[in-house]
């Protein structure tokens, strides 16, 4: 198990955002986390990414307790993340953005550059390598987020609503990319609203409602789950 959460809870003052969250993720799995707005997905995401520590419970990454570690320490441990609203480094080109990511583990510029180019290639951004990062289209920006995260050579990739705002064909392309990432051995954890992506891509889905896990299983099983249907009122988000 690459990632294990045991009885994780997170409180903000009086508000309980997450309680009794427990699940484990095997390596190279694609796991989707879904739930209504306010269910706690973002909190869970940020918790794993290291923006804050759990109020109680343990988070283990490759067996090690990382609950107390900072976001940058977690990135160095092998957990990479993207941002829901893409944040390219505005003063750098596309290539340089990914280069910055490559520098996480590589000190030498030429070597980092090679990895950056390779990663750009992998994410179909080579054509835009020298373009200003601020001049990309939405899907390209999302791919840049992913490329930059991949350049840190993670073992676990956290994707924050990466499909949001993409057209159907772009979603398809994104799914292809995700499968390629998984085929390289990287575990992927999605927070997502776009159901089509979740159902087709994920090996497993965890459903949150009011800070608790109400379902955990294969997509097909989740689809028919009473509790999930109740929580979602049978709604399928735009696909």
């Amino acid at each position, binding site marked *: 198990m690459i990632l294990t959460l045991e009885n994780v809870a997170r409180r903000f003052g009086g508000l309980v955002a997450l309680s009794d969250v427990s699940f484990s993720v095997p390596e190279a799995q694609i796991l989707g986390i879904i739930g209504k707005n306010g269910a706690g997905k973002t909190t869970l995401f940020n918790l794993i990414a290291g923006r804050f520590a759990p109020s109680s419970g343990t988070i283990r990454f490759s067996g090690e307790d990382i609950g107390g570690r900072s976001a940058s*320490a977690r990135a160095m441990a092998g957990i*990479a993340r993207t941002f829901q609203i893409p944040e390219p480094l*505005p*003063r750098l080109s596309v290539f*340089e953005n990914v280069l910055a990511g490559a520098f996480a583990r590589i000190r030498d510029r030429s070597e980092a550059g090679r990895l950056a180019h390779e990663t750009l290639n992998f994410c179909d951004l080579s054509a835009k390598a020298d373009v200003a990062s601020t001049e990309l289209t939405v899907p390209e920006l999302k791919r840049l987020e992913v490329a930059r995260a991949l350049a840190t050579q993670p073992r676990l990739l956290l994707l924050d609503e990466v499909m949001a705002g993409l057209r159907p064909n772009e979603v398809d392309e994104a799914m292809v990319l995700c499968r390629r990432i998984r085929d390289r051995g990287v575990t992927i954890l999605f927070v997502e609203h776009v159901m089509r992506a979740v159902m087709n891509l994920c090996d497993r889905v965890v459903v949150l409602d009011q800070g608790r896990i109400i379902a955990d299983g294969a997509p097909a099983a989740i689809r028919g789950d009473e509790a999930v249907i109740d929580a979602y009122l049978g709604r399928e988000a735009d696909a």
Partner: protein
Amino acid sequence: MSELTATAGRQAVRPAAGTTGLVLAALLLVLAILFPMFVSRYWLALGITVLFWTSFSGSWNIIGGYAGQFSLGHAAFFAIGAYSSAWLYSVFGFPTLVGMIVGSAVAALMALCIGWIIFRYKLHGTYFAIGTLAMSEVLRVLAGALPWFGGNGGIPIPLAQERNWLLMQFQPMAFYYMFLAATVVIIALSAWIARNRFGYQLAAIRDSEDVAESIGISPTRLKLAAYVISAALAAPIGTLYSQYLMFVDPPTFFGLLVAIQVVLPAVIGGLGTAFGPLLGAIVLTFAIELSDRVALRPGASLLAYGAMLMVFSVLLPRGLWPLLSKMLPGATR
């Protein structure tokens, strides 16, 4: 209101390492080396002034430009360098060169302590600027009030009895070359930083600490590193300058005036670029000289200086370098 951070141009992290660029830089260096041999004392002094501000502002540029942390307390490290060498020499007879190295170490240590507190408490933007200024002012008052450092009159540097280059009491021409050496070192270091890991990680911090963290960067650690490097570079410049003037005192070496003057060349020339401080220093120095020559009344040159700042800030918000680099095809990439 935006944060008080670097608004450097897109070229900020581009390595200025095209062949054309290197050739031009080498040419410039040769010219600079030949310069003092053919000019009058007046021009030599002007040249020293330019190189002094270039290297001093260049040292600030590392924390202010590349790391994007607008420090208004940089004068403190400059003064620490000057005071260290002057005091160790005048009181204990330490050779100035040794004092310079000690000064650099002390400045670095001071930056480590100050920076650790300030970055830990997450001071940023305006608050960082004021905080560093406050720190510098505290040191200024202490330097002036504590009895050991000569009070407000400072420390006059005793004239050396014998010729000893370790005491660093040179002729102006030698000072020119020393400041030139400092300039070359700092520009080269800046260019190296911009092109390598440190520079890219600083750029990430400058733009978004969240993103920086997501790619494994610890903002506090790197900001601290940049701050310490900046300080360690400023101190020897202080020693050189105090040797040039043959004294050190709180009003000349500390203070808001110095703090602002060290920032301007980098800002005007191009924040976070290797050659920015040089461009800015040249423009500002010549503007002052020119207006002093032409000025009818005292204060007129200052008025021109102020007007120039206003014009530059609005017309060339990212400084001169982005403009220049566009005019030199292939020189930057």
